[in-house]
């Protein structure tokens, strides 16, 4: 029987001693996994709290259904990508760590150790590493969340610090499971390697000897060296690229999706309210209208009001006078009131059997703001579905997004009941007015129903270049009539700033996904540099300067970043346009911003490789050459 320390090499004692003996490698693996686990957990709980904050806004009736739909879809996609990226990066780090052990496994096999025992030892090591890292990562993730949310709240934001224990447990289990599955793969593979292969100085898991096949050796010197090293570690390089691509997809979705969604939502608001539009009406009614618009960012209690009070009605003669003022480009006269509306079920052909018909919808009731408009003079351009009203329309309507989403199953196949009559729904608009619970119908029909020929609100689109003169002339015309002028640009500004505020929460996420991507690349490069240390030493002995070696490491980072960047950014943009934002509004400025931020992210990623590059030349040539 062997005595001494050999007798203590039990299934648990060996892995613990082994990990303790390889302090640097163990430390690097634990650190990498911990940071990765904490970043994933942080992103998910921070993202869900942002989503919660946005949900609160929605539940409070402040955002229209169309807008909250954009936000919730964004948070959902980002959350799912976070979990996927976290699981992949964690698994990748475990894979790299375990790939390094193949030679030790060879030595053990050569010494007569059974494959089963080897598997047991290394799976135990894997479990120790993963559990320590995931527990530490969970603690750090929660702490980081508290620090960041506290900081944001101090800066004037309002982000919840609530922790959902089920979410934390779910992430923890996903990371543990993914790490074990992906970490066990190289161990199982390594346990099958023949001892002679495992002991060969040229063998390591995932390497290939079919180097640079089809690659001209006349590539630039640095590029050739970098490419060959990556090609040799084919399996690890492929995994690094997959990991980085997923993380960069996440970064792209958060950056591009965030910027485009922000621009899209602001654009919808601008088109719904209209630029350079002034409102004319009785002070009680203009105040009411402003309140209905402001609910989007500031919910206010409102009492009842008689919209058809004779004092509120604007005569045709005043409308004519105002429209004749030079610089008034459009006069949109409206008759506005609140009323109960009802969903009317529709009938559609059964897609499975054309001879049969299906009923869609129910008979739901709600209150809405009814706006009688002259279709040819409407100042808003806010349609998201269907067609605008035509001047020949009599029993057609356009309904707001909240009404469409909350009260209808298929609005364009159903009708809406107003004043006990049925109206066709020809379009849906995204309108912040009354939280999207609005119905636009032909003024002539509404006037006939109510027996009124006057209007109660006028919307004037004016020439912004001669604003003060036009406003003065309008004031002059309405003085003494009991009506007042209200500028909608101010409310529009408040809407835009509110949306900016909400999106500024969300734009905090790319920073963290970028940090995860950096960590992923750094871990890969650090382990790659450690594996190439001896060859870097040889190159330097033969006359390569430290900067030649640094260039090789930097080029490796550049190749990995560019390949994963192209994949990740393409997928990210596809996800953004295909699933994230319906009918995105993309201005040239948005495109430049998205391209700029993505480019900056890639540059940042590449620059982060300077650290492993410096590490690669830190040792003297001779000690690098003789390093094991």
């Amino acid at each position, binding site marked *: 029987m062997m005595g001494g320390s050999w007798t203590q090499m039990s299934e648990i004692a060996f892995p613990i001693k082994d990990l303790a003996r390889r302090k640097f490698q163990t430390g690097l693996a634990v650190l990498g996994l911990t940071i990765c686990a904490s970043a994933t957990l942080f992103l998910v709980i921070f993202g869900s709290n942002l989503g919660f904050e946005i949900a609160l806004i929605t539940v409070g009736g402040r955002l229209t259904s169309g807008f909250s739909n954009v936000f919730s879809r964004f948070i959902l996609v980002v959350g799912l990508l976070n979990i996927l990226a976290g699981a992949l990066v964690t698994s990748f780090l475990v894979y790299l760590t375990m790939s390094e052990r193949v030679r030790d496994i060879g030595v053990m096999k050569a010494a007569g150790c059974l494959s089963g025992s080897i598997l047991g030892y290394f799976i135990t090591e894997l479990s120790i590493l993963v559990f320590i890292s995931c527990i530490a990562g969970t603690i750090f993730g929660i702490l980081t969340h508290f620090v960041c949310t506290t900081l944001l709240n101090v800066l004037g934001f309002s982000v919840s610090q609530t922790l959902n224990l089920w979410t934390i447990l779910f992430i923890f289990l996903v990371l543990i499971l993914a790490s074990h599955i992906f970490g066990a793969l190289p161990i199982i593979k390594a346990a099958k390697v023949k001892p002679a292969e495992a002991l060969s100085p040229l063998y390591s898991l995932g390497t290939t000897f079919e180097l640079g096949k089809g690659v001209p*050796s006349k590539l630039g010197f640095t590029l050739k060296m970098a490419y060959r090293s990556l090609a040799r570690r084919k399996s690890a390089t492929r995994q690094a690229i997959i990991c980085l691509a997923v993380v960069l997809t996440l970064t792209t979705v958060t950056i591009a999706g965030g910027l485009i969604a922000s621009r899209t939502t602001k654009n919808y608001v601008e088109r719904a309210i209209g630029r350079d539009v002034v409102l004319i009406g009785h002070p009680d009614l203009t105040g009411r209208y402003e309140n209905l618009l402001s609910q989007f960012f500031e919910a206010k209690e409102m009492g009842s009001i008689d919209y058809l009070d004779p004092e509120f009605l604007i005569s045709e003669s005043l409308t004519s006078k105002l429209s004749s003022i030079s610089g008034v480009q459009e006069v949109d006269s409206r008759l506005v009131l609140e009323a109960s509306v009802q969903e009317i079920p529709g009938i559609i052909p059964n897609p499975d059997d054309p001879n049969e018909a299906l009923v869609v919808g129910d008979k739901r009731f709600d209150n809405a703001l009814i706006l009688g408009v002259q279709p040819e003079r409407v100042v808003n351009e806010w349609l998201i579905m269907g067609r605008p009203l035509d001047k020949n329309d009599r029993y057609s309507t356009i309904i707001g997004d909240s009404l469409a989403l909350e009260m209808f199953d298929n609005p364009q196949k159903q009708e809406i009941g107003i004043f006990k009559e049925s109206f066709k729904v020809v379009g849906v608009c995204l309108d912040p007015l009354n939280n999207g619970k609005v119905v636009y119908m032909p003024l002539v029909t509404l006037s006939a129903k109510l027996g009124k020929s006057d209007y109660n609100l006028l919307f004037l689109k004016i020439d912004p270049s001669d604003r003060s003169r036009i406003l003065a002339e309008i004031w002059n015309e309405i003085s003494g009539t009991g009506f007042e002028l209200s500028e909608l640009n101010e409310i529009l500004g408040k809407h835009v700033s509110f949306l900016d505020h909400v999106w500024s929460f969300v734009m905090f996420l790319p920073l963290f996904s970028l940090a995860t991507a950096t960590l992923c690349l750094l871990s890969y490069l650090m382990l790659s540099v450690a594996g190439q240390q001896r060859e870097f030493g040889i190159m330097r002995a033969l006359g390569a300067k430290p900067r030649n070696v640094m260039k090789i490491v930097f080029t490796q980072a550049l190749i990995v970043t560019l390949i994963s960047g192209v994949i990740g950014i393409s997928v990210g943009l596809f996800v953004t346009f295909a699933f994230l934002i319906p009918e995105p509004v993309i201005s040239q400025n948005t495109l430049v911003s998205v391209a700029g931020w993505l480019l900056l992210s890639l540059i940042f990623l590449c620059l982060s490789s300077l650290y492993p590059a410096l590490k690669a030349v830190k040792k003297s040539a001779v000690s690098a050459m003789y390093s094991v």
Partner: protein
Amino acid sequence: MKEKVVLASSLCKEYQIGDLTIEALKNLNLEVVKGEFLSIYGPSGAGKTTLLSLIGGLDKPTSGKVVVFGHDLATYDEDFLATFRCAYVGFVFQSFNLISTLTAMENVAFPVELAGWSRERIEKRSENLLKLVRLRHRANHFPAQLSGGEQQRVAFARALANDPPLLLVDEPTGNLDMETGLEVVRILKKMKAKGKTVIVATHDERILELSNRTLRLYDGRIMDPDE
């Protein structure tokens, strides 16, 4: 009087391993003249590899001076030493130290690529050197696909790529069998005939016989051969 290629005076080299200080070279003095074939022998751990590393500018002495081709190597930075090695020194290591990701041809071309030669010149030079070591047919093979002897011959070809005036060769036959070792001895003979200055750390009798001078190194000191 022949030009002094290497001049080492009071050369000391210490390694620190934890609390332990290991003196690899102790107050060593050495002169090597142009065209000399010097063999250094001695037991394992005597300091042979350390001495070659210091002469080649791979490492710096703890104290003392090592002047090679008039350059006091301890006073220069890493960039200068890299250029110096590329221009003046050809290394052959015991464990071959070929770059695993490059073919035999590319390994040979490595030092001249660093020196910035033209593509045509590099190709011609590499081919000639592979012919010299009788490995032209293995030009496109990777180190893992070559035998130990072939790898060592590629290492020789690589060491000669820049036509360096000084060759530092560390145990060139240490990892080879008798037959393969003969090929290495043949190459060394050619180097001697060409008038290169060669310093070899070796135990191989065939190489010792080739030498103009032999030195016995023991415990970091040059000893009298009879001592």
